[in-house]
């Protein structure tokens, strides 16, 4: 029974919610207008020939599409804005670089990426060679027996560090909502259960792979068969993972998608060179020159009489 529910039904539903949710969210965001071009410039604009722009200026204050693309890539893959982070020390009345958050975030996200890549071995037959190679590399194959995947442990460490920030730093504690803790707890539970399964309470890996392959080919009968053969330990990991998938589009985890649409980052700083059109730009409402002229006729005529200029009165 557990097998059918958590091995077949729940993952299907969760995946459907995930896909539909992400698509919905993108459409929901994309259908809102972008009335203004509002890049946050963090470097020298492109202006005169002799005003030099460094390579950083070109990314941080991009003028062309390509430069903007590089800015986005750096933001997404290197968390460039977080890398600039500083900390203000009230006792010294000054600030210093503070890159801990960047480090923890990079550690978490890249570990997650490696872990996800490794998990593709459950979805492909034969396993792509680069996945094999990557797994062997990060496990330092041959050093430990059984192999220890660094990313699997690093991700737990990173999650704990990120959580400790929210628990022990007063400012971060104050702004953390229950949902912020919740996301970290779910991720911790998933990663810990995964590691437990790998090193302590082993499950039948070939059955797991069989389950996933048959789920992917919609071979329900076979999937149920495999699902019933797998130990319950697997379902802790699998059910939590399914839950996270379904939770993803409706939570702050959607920042992963949102960053692509962020108007302060994905627009070039070429405002004065290329006009941006607002689809709902209202017509001008206000006085006209004619009305202005009629209101201040005497004074404006006086300026006209003196030949549209003033001269200093020199004694």
């Amino acid at each position, binding site marked *: 029974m557990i097998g059918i529910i958590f091995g077949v039904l729940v993952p299907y539903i969760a995946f459907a919610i995930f896909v539909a949710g992400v698509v919905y969210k993108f459409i929901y*965001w*994309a259908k*809102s*207008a*972008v*009335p*203004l*071009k*509002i890049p*946050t*410039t*963090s*470097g*020298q*604009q492109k*202006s*005169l020939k*002799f005003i030099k722009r460094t390579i950083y200026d070109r990314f941080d204050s991009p003028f062309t599409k390509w430069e903007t693309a590089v800015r986005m890539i750096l*933001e997404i893959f290197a968390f460039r*804005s*977080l890398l*600039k*982070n*500083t900390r*203000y020390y009230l006792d010294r009345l*000054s*600030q210093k*670089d503070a890159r801990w*958050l960047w480090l923890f*975030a990079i550690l978490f996200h890249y570990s997650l990426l490696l872990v996800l890549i490794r998990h593709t071995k459950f979805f492909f037959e034969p396993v792509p060679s680069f996945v094999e190679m990557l797994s062997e590399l990060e496990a330092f194959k041959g050093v430990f027996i059984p192999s220890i995947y660094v990313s699997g442990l690093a991700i737990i460490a990173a999650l704990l560090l990120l959580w400790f920030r929210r628990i022990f730093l*007063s400012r*971060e*504690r104050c*702004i*953390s*909502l229950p*949902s*912020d803790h919740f996301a970290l707890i779910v991720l911790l539970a998933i990663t810990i259960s995964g590691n437990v399964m790998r090193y302590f309470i082993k499950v039948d890996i070939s059955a797991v792979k069989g389950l996933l392959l048959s789920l992917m080919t919609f071979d329900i009968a076979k999937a149920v068969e495999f699902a019933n053969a797998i130990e319950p330990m697997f379902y802790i990991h699998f059910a939590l993972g399914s839950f996270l998938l379904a939770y993803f589009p409706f939570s702050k985890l*959607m*920042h992963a998608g*949102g960053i692509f*649409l962020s*108007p*302060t980052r994905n627009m070039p*700083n*070429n405002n*004065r060179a290329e006009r941006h059109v607002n689809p709902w*730009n*209202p017509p*001008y409402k206000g*006085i006209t020159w004619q009305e*202005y002229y009629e209101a*201040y006729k005497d*004074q*404006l005529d*006086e*300026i006209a009489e003196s030949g*549209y200029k*003033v001269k200093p*009165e020199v004694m």
Partner: protein
Amino acid sequence: METHAAEKIRIEQRFPSWRELLKPNTNFKPGYYHYSFRISDAKYLELPFVREWSPVDKDWKLPPNWKEIFLTKMKEYLEKFRSFKLFMDICVRCGACADKCHYYIGTGDPKNMPVARAELIRSIYRRYFTPAGKLGKIAGARDLTEDVVKELYYYAYQCSLCRRCSVFCPYGIDTAEVTWIMRMLLKEIGVVHRFSLISIASSARTGNHLGLLPGGIAGALQSVAEDVYTITGIEIEVPINKKGAEILFVAPSADFFATPHWYVCMGYLMLFHEIGLDYTWSTYASEGGNFGTFISYELAQKLNAKIYQEAERLGVKWILGGECGHMWRDKHQYLATMNEPAKNLEDPVSPITGTYFENAASTKMVHIAEFVADLIAHKKIKLDPTRNDKWIVTLHDACNYARAMGLLEEPRYVIKNVCRFFYEMPEHTIREKSYCCGSGGGLLTEEVMDLRMRGGMPRAMALREVHKKYGVNFLCTLCAIDKAAFPHLLEYWKLPVAVGGMMELVGNALIMKGEKERTTDLRGEPLIRRD
């Protein structure tokens, strides 16, 4: 006899729980809240629900269906501004922005953290526009009540829209955008502050924030020309409303009257005379700044539309803009979107050097620092930087042109050519990381003086560092609000540093044909030479 000991300034940091942070704070402190609008301004601008009310009253006399209006308008703005919708959804509360806000640093009020400021409205968004919001508090959602409206008003006007937090945010969430929309929503239910509206109403009526009539502008420019005559012995004719001029020049109206803006205005006149520029001032488009951008899209458009209208009427080829901060956010990012550029405008080409300002090809508006830097690079003006020897200069990058335009090197290029002693403030306080003066975004008003002085603290401390280290005695800034705000701020933080603009330094250094020997600078103070 009673004696008063100097009061010690304390920054009390508080770290309430997330539950407490969700509760609206309606305890308005004097020195932090803004007065309500004047009836006359609100009526002139045709705002909804014009009535007498005060932020300290218990009853704000909101319209009976205020909640419905607020939520309907919120839905509308979510559709109209992708930025708003996205920023409501993707914040992860990592806290990177928290200590980047000068108001948070200076006041210690947790709700001045950019993330918390956005949470004020995000909690409403969750409650009414997301499924999880039905769970209430536990999902970080809260009901829209009158107390929440009061809190939104209190904190929406404690942000100077400086965008410093947006530089550090990993998703580029721009609090200026969120605050802007909070102010728009409040406007819809008749809740607007006094200061900006006075200037917006004046500017809508007379063409400039100060409410100067055409005769007043002509008189002011005449007085500036007289001051230039006193110092240089040169009689300068100042063109106003002149049809067929090549260039329309637009500066913030403070340059006509305020100090030290006045010296900047002298600098403009001297430079344009010296290079023989065919240009004109306008009394109709007599304001570069745009306080409308502090309140709403429509009000911003109401004010900046006049520039293109006047460019068309006068038949100029392109537009040159003076020293101002938010003016350049408006001109760089808003002007050509809110209004179609006048048809008669041509590509901006400097008549003196022949340089084509490619980066202004569509908007047709060039910044004075770009224009002057180009003149200097082509050696079209003679400069004597020793005339600025009295000043040991540092540059404050004004928020809006640093973070919404990227004008960083041009003013430095000019300053390094017109004075001999220039030092930078610490690296985390300049360029795109520049700290606000604490008075931008509609906060340049007396009633929030405490907030302004505290908000300006990080900037003042950075300045103190170079003042002590290098003896810096001149804070150069290309922003009219800065020039008005800094004298108070530096007095408050006990820094004997003068404040002035780039064009004042240019005016001092500019060698003019037929000038008498200069004995004083533009301020009328004796010249000092350091060797």
